[in-house]
């Protein structure tokens, strides 16, 4: 694929991507080890004070969601800038450093400061009965504002550049395809998918900005009280959208790169455009399924939540997943790392997505809500979906075409990783099935049936699978890190 950038610009862009990749490869296992300690604590293999457990949980949740979105944005920046429309390199560095500062501040506020209100900082928990110092609440709020601003700027930068290049929002949303006017210059899938992902993202960052500023008001004026149901809607809108669109943004490069391996074209057409316009709407309304057990929420919104959740499966499976099958079926593709990992990522997405659909049924949610079923499903499409797409991208980026066959370490590593991931996930699902609650630092206080012993046993087994995940990553890192680092000077 030829680049629209001149060699110097391309080199700069490549260097920034290397920095992004290395940052991700360092932070990711760090956050996994927090997860490992949580599982060990729940299984009785470790003994953390409650505040330590919950501050790890907070850092892990915010950190994972944040780093995966950030690396995905970084990768999308690289692809868009090198192929479709040049993005300002200085501005990208600015966003990178802002994100880095936000991350370091967040780590300080949680791991050292002890802030422990969970990723969703559910109002009014940060302000009532907190066992951590007030400054760590303030510092977390500030770090999230820094991250939010960075993501907002990074997203706007991409959206504005794309809009300028392809003639505005309606073009980017493919509306001309929908009405039957195929443009002379075809719209790349990545451009449309980035739009569908980043416009809701911008809305969600604005929603986050509003409640974070409300947090700051509350911090300085403790007598204030905001409506908790309204705050809950805001936070879940933000949290759901950012995780959801991380997956979509990553799918953008699957659309872009898979055809290079299958040798089959995969472009925007009318059905593609209709489908991604559908996704746009479902992204915005699906978050409502997080509030099913808030009976005070207007019931119209509860219906909307289930309908939007169900319908979101239509474009994803009909267009994207069938699209992947259409790319690979009888294609004589060579199963090197990239196509293999893209296919497996799609598999994880489908499995996790299906488990999510089951839980997005109100009738089912009333017994699965806030059990381990919830982390089970989203860890599936993150660990077995998005993360694999990211590794696919890293291999694409770091391994020249000619060398892509001989990847014994990578293959071994990915297999160990996969065994670890599916074992770890299975324990979460079994926990959910057995009504083990989520967000419990220990299960010893549960005296109902055998929930306690089941929960502890599953957590212990899961801890060993997590160690396998870390081992698998280590094996992959052996070759991956040097290859990526080499790209810095290429």
């Amino acid at each position, binding site marked *: 694929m030829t680049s629209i950038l001149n060699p110097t610009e391309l080199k700069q862009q490549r260097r920034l991507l290397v920095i992004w990749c290395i940052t991700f490869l360092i932070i990711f296992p760090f956050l996994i080890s927090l997860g490992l300690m949580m599982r060990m604590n729940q299984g009785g293999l470790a003994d953390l004070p*409650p505040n330590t457990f919950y501050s790890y949980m907070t850092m892990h949740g915010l950190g994972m969601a944040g780093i995966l979105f950030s690396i995905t944005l970084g990768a999308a920046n690289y692809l868009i800038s090198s192929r479709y429309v040049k993005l300002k390199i200085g501005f990208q560095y600015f966003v990178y450093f802002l994100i880095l500062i936000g991350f370091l501040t967040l780590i300080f506020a949680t791991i050292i400061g002890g802030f422990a209100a969970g990723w969703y900082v559910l109002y*009014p928990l940060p302000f009532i009965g907190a066992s951590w110092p007030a400054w760590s609440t303030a510092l977390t709020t500030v770090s999230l504002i820094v991250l939010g601003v960075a993501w907002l700027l990074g997203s706007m930068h991409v959206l504005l550049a794309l809009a300028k290049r392809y003639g505005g929002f309606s073009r980017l949303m493919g509306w001309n395809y929908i009405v039957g006017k195929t443009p002379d210059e075809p719209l790349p899938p990545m451009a449309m998918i980035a739009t569908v992902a980043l416009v809701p993202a911008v809305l969600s960052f604005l929603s986050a900005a509003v409640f974070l500023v409300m947090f700051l008001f509350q911090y300085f004026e403790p007598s204030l009280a905001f409506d908790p*149901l309204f705050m809950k809607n805001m936070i879940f809108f933000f949290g759901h959208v950012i995780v959801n669109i991380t997956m979509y943004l990553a799918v953008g490069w699957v659309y872009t790169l898979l055809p290079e391996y299958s040798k089959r074209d995969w472009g925007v057409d009318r059905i593609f455009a209709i489908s991604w316009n559908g996704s746009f709407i479902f992204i915005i309304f699906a978050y409502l399924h997080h509030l099913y057990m*808030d009976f005070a929420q207007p019931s119209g919104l509860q219906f909307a939540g289930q309908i939007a959740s169900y319908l979101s499966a239509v474009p994803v499976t009909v267009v994207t997943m069938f699209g992947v099958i259409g790319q690979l079926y009888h294609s004589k593709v060579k199963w090197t790392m990239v196509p293999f990992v893209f296919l497996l990522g799609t598999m994880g997405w489908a499995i996790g997505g299906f488990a999510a659909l089951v839980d997005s049924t109100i009738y089912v949610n*009333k017994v*699965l809500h806030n059990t381990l079923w919830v982390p089970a499903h989203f860890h599936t499409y993150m660990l077995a979906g998005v993360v694999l797409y990211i590794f696919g991208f890293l291999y694409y980026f770091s391994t020249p075409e000619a060398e892509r066959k001989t990847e014994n370490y990578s293959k071994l590593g990915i297999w160990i990783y996969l065994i670890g991931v599916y074992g770890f996930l299975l324990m979460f699902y079994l926990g959910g099935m057995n009504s083990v609650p989520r967000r419990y630092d220990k299960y010893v206080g549960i*005296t109902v*049936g055998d929930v306690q012993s089941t929960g502890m046993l599953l957590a212990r087994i899961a801890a060993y699978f997590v160690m396998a995940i870390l081992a698998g990553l280590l094996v992959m890192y052996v070759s991956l890190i040097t290859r990526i680092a080499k790209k810095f000077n290429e």
Partner: protein
Amino acid sequence: MIPNNLFLSIQTSAAIVSLLGAILVVCIVLFIIGTSSVDEEKHQAKGKVYKLRVKYFYGLMAAIVLLLFFTMQTLPYFKHKTTRSDEVVTVVGAQWAWKMDHGTTEVKAKEFEGLNDITLPSNKVIQFNVMSADVNHNFAIYNDKGDIVAQTQAMPNYTNHLQYTFEERGEYHILCLEYCGMAHAYMTGSIHIE
């Protein structure tokens, strides 16, 4: 109306359905990998997949409409409006204890007094009016086997009405299912059914 448990608990059925879904997905992936070396002209191969896709689309839409129709027959939200309850119980979640008492209350959630266990009759429609004195909690009822049978959020400023009929005599248990601070995992209570 769909009964609460047809043969298996809802959670077991959900797990089985999800497992079957996962197996189907894995089979599709294995099939694609296994047959990928077959040489077929690309438009022809894609054409076959897209033909199947049309059938899948109609099947999926039909399934969604049917499932929405059936699963939305019994929602937990309106029961207290449509069914008369035999007994009302006030429940207040507070950091970190459940307070329960018979009847409605006039006092604010913060001032409410109650105990973390209560005795209730079997086979009567019980309405729990659930509130919170401080942060978000979640009032979840477990049967003695350890399965969740019903739940609702306990939220400051709002009252959530949860209706449930206990069919079996004996012990039911309460856990908190919304993270509410340090002792969240120890915020328990019990319900004796006579």
